[in-house]
């Protein structure tokens, strides 16, 4: 009689351990499956590249546009249009992300190698300056961070019907979330 009761108690104890083991295996399988499920697709660098090409190739940007032919010369910057962007902000109409644009910001730095003149224009200036602090501080990972993508091009500056050598540096900042 006592032997039967002790066997039953032993069985109960073993069953408790078995159930714990089964629950552990269940969790392990679920975690393993979830670790292989991808829910984020990072295209920020590609988005920055597309934005840069759009700015350089767009007829509504600062690249020189031959209005007669309707052709844009992406390697030639129209100096007057570049300077006027600071006031007219036509770049933001060329790529409009909404009235409260928190998707992308950019800075364009043009340096004339002949006379050393430097000019800077911004796309979405306030947002660019706000996010640049994060980029410069190294907060490039995680939902609250931002990433900056810098490029440099050797270009020609069309100024008063003459072409002068110059360098166009640009930085595009895209937040992580």
């Amino acid at each position, binding site marked *: 009689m006592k032997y039967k009761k002790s066997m039953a108690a032993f069985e109960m104890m073993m069953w408790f351990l078995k159930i714990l083991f089964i629950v552990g295996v269940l969790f392990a399988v679920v975690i393993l*499956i979830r670790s292989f*499920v991808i*829910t984020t697709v990072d295209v920020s660098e590609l988005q920055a590249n597309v934005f840069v090409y759009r700015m350089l190739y*767009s007829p*509504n940007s600062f690249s020189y546009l031959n209005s007669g032919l309707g052709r844009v010369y992406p390697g030639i910057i129209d100096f007057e249009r570049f300077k006027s962007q600071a006031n007219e902000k036509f770049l933001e*109409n060329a790529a409009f*992300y909404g009235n409260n644009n928190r998707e992308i910001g950019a800075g364009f730095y043009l340096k004339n190698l002949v006379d050393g003149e430097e000019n800077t224009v911004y796309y979405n200036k306030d947002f660019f300056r706000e996010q640049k602090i994060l980029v410069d501080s190294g907060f490039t990972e995680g939902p609250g961070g931002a990433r900056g993508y810098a490029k440099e091009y050797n270009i020609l500056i069309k100024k008063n019907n003459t072409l002068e050598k110059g360098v166009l540096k640009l930085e595009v900042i895209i937040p992580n979330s």
Partner: protein
Amino acid sequence: MNKERNKKGVFNDKRGDVKLILWAIIQIMIPIIILLLLLDYIGSVNEDTLFEKIFLSRDLGLLMDTIYSGHGDLDYEYRNKQARLELFRFEFREQQAKVGELGSRSIEVGFPFGEDLDMPYPGNSVSGKSRIIFSKSKDSLSTS
């Protein structure tokens, strides 16, 4: 008394241990239930379309940016072998390329694109089609 002693059967025979039989049944049922739960979970992961929606929204948003940057007239037919487009509903509106499931109000996934204000785009929805056609002319852009 004699009638009770003559009872037979799996559960009625006093020579048999009913508890052992029940324990055996429970030991079989628990793994079967757990197996069914796991299979159901794996099936739900397999049927989940969140990744396809994320992928398609980014692909179409970047495609809109690329089309805007092109010059001249453009007609482009978008197809995707990785995902069945006819299962989804696509919406291009308010500078967002959104993807949702056809016929259901599930969570939509969107990706922004930059609209050219000199080339007005009123917005459009496309659903139930295996391809999306983008047409750009000098002054306008359309999707169908």
